[in-house]
């Protein structure tokens, strides 16, 4: 129900998604100008595009994570959520799910655009690429939601969120780039299965840590 409420608000305003899409477009355009098609072909799509994609996704996601708790701070709705007779882990799961849906929607918009900008055949790698993106996005959203809650309680916003998130999420980003690169080279998903398994393990670990700590983050 928390996820449903957040998505209902987002559907009504499109405030978060529009900011994320705009930011992503700017990043893609900048990289598109930085690397023309000749340079892309020389370097190789599989070497260049993964980094561009995950820089785009991660920085855009920060906007979404921060906003997910800003809506609770405006009228102190977070206090009402804390007051409710639900386990705090339910609140975390709802927030993380809403963030995942929003970031996934962004990625579904950006992937086709990146294929146009960097001239690669998205349809040929769609299935494996979506699997890689969603698995890594799940971990990113779990961590992002957790640290967004910390930043919201401390009152420091996006600057603190980025400072907390990126170091802890670095294994995730490394795996994301490796897996995306392998998929864009046309390799089967099994060729990056080790990285995928490690990421799945991190996703579970992040979830468990969040379940154990979210209550203490929300309380003063």
């Amino acid at each position, binding site marked *: 129900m928390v996820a449903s409420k957040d998505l209902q608000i987002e559907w009504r305003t499109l405030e978060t998604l529009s900011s994320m899409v705009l930011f992503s477009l700017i990043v893609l355009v900048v990289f598109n100008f930085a690397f023309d098609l000749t340079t892309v072909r020389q370097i190789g799509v599989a070497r260049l595009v993964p980094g561009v994609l995950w820089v785009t996704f991660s920085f855009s996601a920060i906007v979404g994570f921060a906003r997910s708790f800003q809506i609770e701070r405006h*009228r102190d709705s977070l206090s009402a959520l804390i007051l409710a007779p639900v386990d705090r882990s339910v609140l975390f799961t709802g927030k993380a799910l809403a963030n995942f849906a929003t970031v996934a929607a962004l990625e579904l918009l950006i992937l086709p655009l990146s294929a146009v900008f960097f001239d690669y055949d998205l349809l040929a790698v769609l299935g494996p690429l979506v699997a890689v993106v969603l698995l890594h996005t799940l971990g990113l959203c779990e961590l992002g939601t957790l640290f967004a809650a910390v930043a919201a309680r401390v009152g420091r916003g996006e600057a603190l969120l980025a400072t907390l998130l990126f170091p802890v999420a670095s294994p995730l980003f490394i795996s994301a780039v490796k897996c995306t690169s392998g998929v864009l080279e046309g390799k089967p998903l099994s060729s990056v299965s080790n990285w995928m398994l490690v990421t799945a393990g991190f996703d579970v670990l992040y979830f468990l840590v969040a379940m154990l700590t979210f209550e203490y983050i929300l309380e003063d």
Partner: protein
Amino acid sequence: MGDAPILEARNLMKRFGAIAALDGLDFDLAAGESLAVFGPNGAGKTTLTRILTGSLRMTSGSLKIAGRDPRAHGIETQRIIGLISHQTFLYDDLTARQNLIFFARLYGLDDPPGKAVELLDSVRLLDRADDPARTFSRGMQQRLSLARCLIHDPRIVFLDEPFTGLDPYAAALLRATLERLRHEGRTLFLVTHNLAEGLELSDRWMILAAGKIRAQGESSGVDRTAFERSYFQHVGGPPAGGAHA
């Protein structure tokens, strides 16, 4: 009023570093009783309310709500308490109806849409049910917040300066609602700066200053002028030029 206290606080302490925001509070609240808490800014009233409603941990002491330790029985305790604050806890981009349906679902109520309609009608906002909360005036938002607070039929209602920023109509409606809640036998814990209003809406009063209970007593038959003088004596005197509650 029942015999067993619905709220028991013993030696409640809350420290923020070296500062004792609450310094050994002992008080009970009987079921069905209404307690008004007065005190100057920084007295610890909001800190106390936050501890009693579970959003802040006490440093030491014991607290029982309906016979249970909230730290061990948090979810059961949260089911029977409600909070109205000067903040509304609403979502501006949801309609009044959507706000109440969300909170009804959060509290696990049957028929959330039906409950939302019932409460919107009780606070005279049914005609604005499908308007976003951000289009509401301050008074209307507080009425919606009242509906949100009462949606799960709480036994204890905490009110932290609920009259802040209300126009006379909204204040009168809130006052009437609080009287109705008292008549229904609910327990009220009212934090307010308005001495006269607090005395009118309470069975007992308590003056908090610098984290300590300075005085408490029965509200019935209290002379307002004498009480105001007594209040200033307990909190350290009126400001220069006199003061009025």
